[in-house]
């Protein structure tokens, strides 16, 4: 399959058939950009915010284009009044009790509630511009289509591979929250994994995955989304005994992913014109 690799300063990618896959990486946002983004979103921005990075796939003849970016993902972080009550750091109770003893109850000012774990169900920004009908090029629920995992397991040559971190925050050293993309393009198909990975030390693990799959020559793009989570202790108990006190598996999102039970998932399909 004829393809052309794309590489300039900050962009890498591949053009294959009627498709263009691009990954753009640059530095974290500067203070001014952070102030603007924070004001727009209404929440503090994660410590490492690659707000200008993106992964995009575009299908020229249909006008289909899907992008993955940090700021639209952060716009979906829960800001409801109870959003910051759902998960607290492991020592929050102790902290509040001792604080009362120190007579700091007068400090009642809590930063406007938001989900400080930056959990997001973002599954990409559909920025398609259909030339014929703007109601086309939308993802619709399906029970008939699914991603061809067997094909993806074949060791076909990979023409283009890339990883791109969109944001990362270590939750003031209480864990980690990372949103990142991976993409691989093979002669027969392209495949994307957008993953939100959360570890709150001594509290929980959570993985929200979005997978995008297109087999070249077909007219469908498939999107599968899943949400999974498990308590920190249950997950830690799954570390093989042979590892002893070595907890480094808990830092490996791939291992965590292999251990978390499925909770909820759905499949969508989009028809190219």
């Amino acid at each position, binding site marked *: 399959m004829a393809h052309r*690799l794309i590489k300039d300063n900050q962009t890498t990618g591949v053009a294959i058939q009627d498709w263009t896959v691009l990954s753009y990486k640059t530095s974290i946002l500067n203070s001014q950009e952070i102030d603007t983004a924070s004001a727009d979103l209404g929440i503090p921005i994660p410590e490492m915010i690659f707000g200008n990075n993106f992964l995009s796939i575009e299908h020229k003849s249909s006008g289909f284009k899907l992008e993955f970016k940090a700021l639209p993902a952060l716009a979906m972080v829960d800001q409801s009044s109870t959003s910051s009550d759902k998960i607290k*750091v492991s020592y929050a109770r102790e902290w509040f009790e001792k604080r009362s003893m120190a007579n700091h109850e007068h400090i009642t*000012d*809590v930063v406007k509630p938001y989900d*400080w774990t930056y959990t997001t169900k973002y599954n990409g920004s559909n920025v398609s511009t259909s030339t014929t009908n703007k109601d086309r090029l939308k993802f619709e629920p399906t029970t008939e289509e699914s991603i061809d995992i067997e094909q993806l397991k074949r060791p076909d040559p990979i*023409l283009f*591979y*890339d990883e791109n971190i969109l944001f990362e925050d270590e939750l*003031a*050293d209480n864990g980690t929250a990372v949103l990142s993309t991976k993409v691989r393009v093979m002669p027969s198909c392209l495949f994307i994994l957008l993953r939100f990975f959360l570890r709150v030390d001594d509290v929980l693990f959570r993985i929200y995955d979005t997978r995008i799959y297109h087999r070249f020559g077909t007219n469908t793009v498939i999107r599968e989304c899943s949400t999974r989570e498990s308590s920190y202790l249950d997950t830690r108990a799954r570390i093989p005994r042979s590892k002893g006190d070595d907890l480094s598996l808990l830092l490996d999102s791939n291992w965590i992913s292999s251990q978390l039970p499925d909770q909820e998932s759905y499949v969508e399909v989009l028809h190219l014109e």
Partner: protein
Amino acid sequence: MVLDLDACIESLFQRQLLAESVIKEICEKTKELLMTESNVVHIKAPVTVVGDIHGQFYDLLEIFKIGGYCPDTNYLFLGDYVDRGLYSVETISILTCLKLRYPERVQLVRGNHESRAVTSTYGFYTECMKKYGTSDVWHYFTDLFDYLTLSVVIDNMIFCVHGGLSPSIHTIDQIKVIDRFKEIPHEGPMADLVWSDPDPGREEFAVSPRGAGYTFGSMVVEKFLHENRMDHILRAHQLCMEGFQVLFDDQLSTVWSAPNYCYRCGNLASILEIGVEGERHFNVFEAAPENERPTPAEAQRALFSNGVPAGLFSNGGSNGAGVGGGGPNGSNGAMTFAGGANGSNGGIDATQDAIHYFL
């Protein structure tokens, strides 16, 4: 054997790790020295202030090149020496040696990463195990961390701390009475000093939505400075793209000294040079040039040399392209947790490893 500190410092500058027994002795002696320091150390300008380094040893070498070497330049380090970068052991080894060798000219403040709990998750513990084969070195250093001072005051004018202010602390004297010789607690003034962050959008203290920790606003800064007759707060702790940030009408500065943080953020770093008149100059710099870093093979060896405290350059000098420099967010950035899913290569040139067949 008599401890030869100059030789230790020299070999660290040559990227040679110290033997475990030497580290033990240095940590013991440094503890004795630090025990005599107050929770608030008073020093005089001129002094060069360094923020978070996080194991980016090659950038620390760059700092000495830019800011001058000890003892010609006085240094105040604001904590977070270890974790995340690849060379926490080298970084804390050289800083400890310099402190012991030039106690009046080098000040080391405690950061939130100078703690057993945090270093067991964020890299320092793993690095010690990989470079020495046992956790002993980690124990020596983390025991030493309990002795580091909490704050420094420059010329009675500038209050320096790793994180920020605490609602339990109104005066400098209240810091002096903290029992600091212990692991950093989750709560209380000692925790606040190493953890809290300024919030330019508020006036008072506020509780973080995480359920622990404070942010402090403009009135808090104003009151603290007024009450203690000072004119500036200087702290580290927060990554910023520009390498420094000045807030609250020039009453508070953040200095950040880890360029291209975690080998992928693409940020600048700075050191803050404070002159005898109290004038402040941020000396901004980028990540150390790649040709001054170890080659990929050398970086790997440094990480995987189990039980062998060999130097980073045990096989000779450094040549060729470096690792760990990388571009912003570069796919060749070596990761903190070696052996994890993130290898030292990637991108479009190496596409047949198992890692590329993610599902």
